[in-house]
């Protein structure tokens, strides 16, 4: 790792994500449960005599992620026991991977082109959830044993903004691979150091959520600039928005790692690795670049479309049949808008590529106006129908009959004297208003370009 001599800030991340399996990492309890302590068994409760058995799917997901991040996969992996005492630990040791990670030496490239190296990724089990009461803690073991994947970067991030971008890209890849619950929370331990204080490293443990991670980083950088800095571990208090020193006694414990003797070692055949590789879709960054290069669409549109796997897939299906630039624009501005309004992901609506191909084709050959297009897409998100048939049945084709439109223009002009006066005195907005009024009379079907021309002629 080369140090950029001009670096002011050094940030490294240890990100914990929960893998999207139905059962826990080492036992068959559900990973999702309602009532506290309702998805528990002797294994995740740490009952004496219970033993772990590794979840195959969790291992596959971990391998998938390692490969997607360009890591070298360890050919033989082992699990380790990390021993420390805390009320959220069902065995007072965590089964994790210390000696040999699942994968190492991967990377994520930021938009600026900077490459952030990923030191290692590994699997480990989640501890239980603590609810802090006044005094004693309440413990819920539903979370105990949930499958986590830890991703560790080199301390190469230059700023909280870069850290945020890195997190975004990481989460995007995770969603693409479909190994991560979109709703589930990301946690991270972050380490921060600044040049002014000789890069003395401070670790902030257990920051929950994107926003908090960025907030904590901003705060800590400022704090380090304005205070004495010593090498220590700090916690993040989201309510007060500050980091605080954690009693060093608690963090001094030696973890005393040993190889987990209740688990075997695991090896990966080349055929298995190849199979998993096949399941990895083209990732968002390179996909967006391809769209710009091959389809000549706008860079921002490309990134936004490539961000979501289902959106990107529907885009590619449609772009085979309809002009990609138009497709991209309509997906980005209209489809995403209505999905947002409905608060539903694409796969929870009746929309398929077929409907959108029809709709975008109508727009492409100018058979309908944009306004009508918008109305149709708003309806498509709620019910399944053929846009082509709908337009025919409802008579929604674009109205380009000059005589018909002229009549509407005259009506609008005579009914809106104020707007006419405004336009004549140079207010551009007034024309837009008048066009809108005519469009309303045509129920959105009027050709706006033609309407504008007719109005301008009329008002001369």
């Amino acid at each position, binding site marked *: 790792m080369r140090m950029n001599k001009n670096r002011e800030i050094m940030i490294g991340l240890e990100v914990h994500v929960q893998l999207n399996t139905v059962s826990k990492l080492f036992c068959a309890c559900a990973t999702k449960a309602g009532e506290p302590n309702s998805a528990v068994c002797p294994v995740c409760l740490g009952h*004496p*005599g219970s033993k772990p058995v590794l979840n195959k799917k969790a291992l596959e997901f971990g391998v998938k992620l390692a490969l997607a991040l360009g890591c070298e996969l360890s050919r033989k992996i082992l699990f380790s*026991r990390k021993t420390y005492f*805390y009320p959220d630990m069902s065995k*007072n040791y965590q089964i994790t991977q210390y000696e040999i990670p699942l994968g190492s030496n991967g990377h994520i490239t930021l938009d600026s082109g900077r490459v952030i190296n990923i030191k290692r990724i590994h699997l480990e089990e989640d501890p239980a959830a603590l609810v802090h009461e006044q005094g004693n803690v309440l413990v819920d073991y539903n979370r105990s044993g949930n499958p986590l994947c830890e991703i560790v970067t080199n301390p190469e991030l230059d700023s909280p903004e870069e850290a945020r971008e890195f997190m975004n890209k990481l989460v995007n890849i995770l969603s693409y691979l479909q190994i991560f619950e979109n709703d589930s929370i990301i946690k991270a331990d972050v380490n921060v150091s600044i040049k002014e204080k000789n890069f003395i490293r401070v670790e902030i443990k257990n920051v929950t959520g994107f926003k908090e991670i960025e907030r904590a980083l901003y705060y800590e950088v400022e704090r380090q600039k304005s205070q004495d800095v010593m090498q220590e571990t700090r916690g993040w208090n989201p309510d007060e928005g500050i980091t605080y020193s954690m009693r060093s006694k608690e963090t001094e414990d030696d973890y005393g790692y040993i190889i987990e*003797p209740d688990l075997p070692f695991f090896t990966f055949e080349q055929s298995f690795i190849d199979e998993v590789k096949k399941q990895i879709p083209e990732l968002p960054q390179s996909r967006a670049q391809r769209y710009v290069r091959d389809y000549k669409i706008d860079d921002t549109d490309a990134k936004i479309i490539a961000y979501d796997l289902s959106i990107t897939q529907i885009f590619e299906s449609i772009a085979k049949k309809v002009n990609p630039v138009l497709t991209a624009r309509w997906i980005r501005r209209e489809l995403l808008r209505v999905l947002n309004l409905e608060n539903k992901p694409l796969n929870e609506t009746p929309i398929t590529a077929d409907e959108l191909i029809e709709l975008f084709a109508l727009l492409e050959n100018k058979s309908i106006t944009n306004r009508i297009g918008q109305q149709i897409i708003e309806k498509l998100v709620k019910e399944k129908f053929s846009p082509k048939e709908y337009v025919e049945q409802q008579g929604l084709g674009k109205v380009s009959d000059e005589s018909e439109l002229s009549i509407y223009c005259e009506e609008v002009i005579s009914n809106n004297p104020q707007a006419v006066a405004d336009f004549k005195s140079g207010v551009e907005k007034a024309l837009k208003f008048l066009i809108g009024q005519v469009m309303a009379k045509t129920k959105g079907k009027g050709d706006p370009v033609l309407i504008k021309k007719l109005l301008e002629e009329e008002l001369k």
Partner: protein
Amino acid sequence: MSVIKFVKSVKEGSIDVVKNAEKAVLESKKINSEYNYFNAFDETALAQAMIVDKKVRKGIAGKLAGVIISVKDCICVKGVESTAGSAVLKGYRPLFDAAAVEKCRAEDAIIIGKTAQDEFGFGGFNVNIGNGFKIPLNPLDKSRSCGGSSGGAAGITQKASFPHLAIAESTGGSIVNPAAFCGVVGLCPTYGRVSRYGLIDYANSLDKIGTMAKSCADAGLLLSVISGHDEKDSTSSNNKLQYFEFKNSVKGMKIGIVKEAFGEGVDSRIVDRVSDAIRKFEDKGAETVSVSLPTTFKYGIPTYYILAMCEASTNLAKYCGMRYGAHSELKGMFNQYFSAVRTKNFGAEAKRRILLGTFARMAGYRDAYYIKAAQARTRIIEEYKQAFKQCDVLAAPTMPILPPTFEEISKLTPLQNYMADILTVGPNLAGLPHLSLPCGKINDFSAGLQLIGNHFEELELLEVGNAYEQK
């Protein structure tokens, strides 16, 4: 009466299962009041007997129909206090049966109770008992040790007048050691042969569940029931031991005599008896060859103890007064609370091993102790593998001494205690099946003959042992 004969009689209808169970429970409790072999009795024993009785009458009873079985306290029996001999688990009644216990129940055995042991298996004389527990007394001489850590299991196996089998456990020799001291057969199978699910861990890469009985055939019968793959234990083997008919012959068998096991440091009377036994095999047509295991004898003890203590110190971390077992009033910060519960409820040897095990895996010491011991283990395993190229079975004394008195034991340092394992740590480290059987009397006691087989070759061991028994 042998257990095999007992089962036959039960199925033929000539033995009343319930009456037998009643008598056995009474006798066990009487013995216990004198000898301290049981930490707990299963109060459902008679209810179990009644269910088995019904099945016997229907002709559908299993391979262990009506057989009385004792279970070492570290092996979980659902609803019965299972403490592994430690105060830290006093009152703990597991919500599940260990896999081995489940298998016994499926064959209609009757579980009567949990046998005494050194706390968590930490000992070779069963004197390292947990706070509040009693030391089991040798069935042949009450002033002497039963051996350990499965002292109670060996004691009751010798003392019971009713047909009985013991489920026991070995980490460094805890099955064959007490078997030798109490004059019974102890069979410790290959690592992974019997599921460890439900075994309260001492050291996970060393723990093995095995059996004790008055004969090799009976010990083998129980092993054939409790062995087999268990999906709940990732280290359990797919290799199931099938029950078998003995050939009653050792003709053509090659027996390797372990040179270092017959040297100074082993009581000469024991050397004599074991050598006699080996000569008997030669008379019966077996060949003998001398085998040397220098690495095992020089480095076996430290290798075993380092690995065992490292693993044990992590296994015992879970005992902290939360969720189950011994606890205190919840006051103070969490570290204070944990320390209070642990300090109060662990015995001296348990504390010593936790300290040593924690130390040996601490940063800075880990490479020299934990990793080095794991490498030493590889060399020891290789040494045994080489030995098995020359012979089918290895023979040696089980213990270097006769059962000592409690007074003699009290004068030993902890290290001297550990050294008594010198003859048994080898097969335990290497996960090799081994058994001990009595072979020649010395006063009230018998010398223990230890036979060691290659991985998964329990049948060979039982063949040889059984052949010896057929005098």
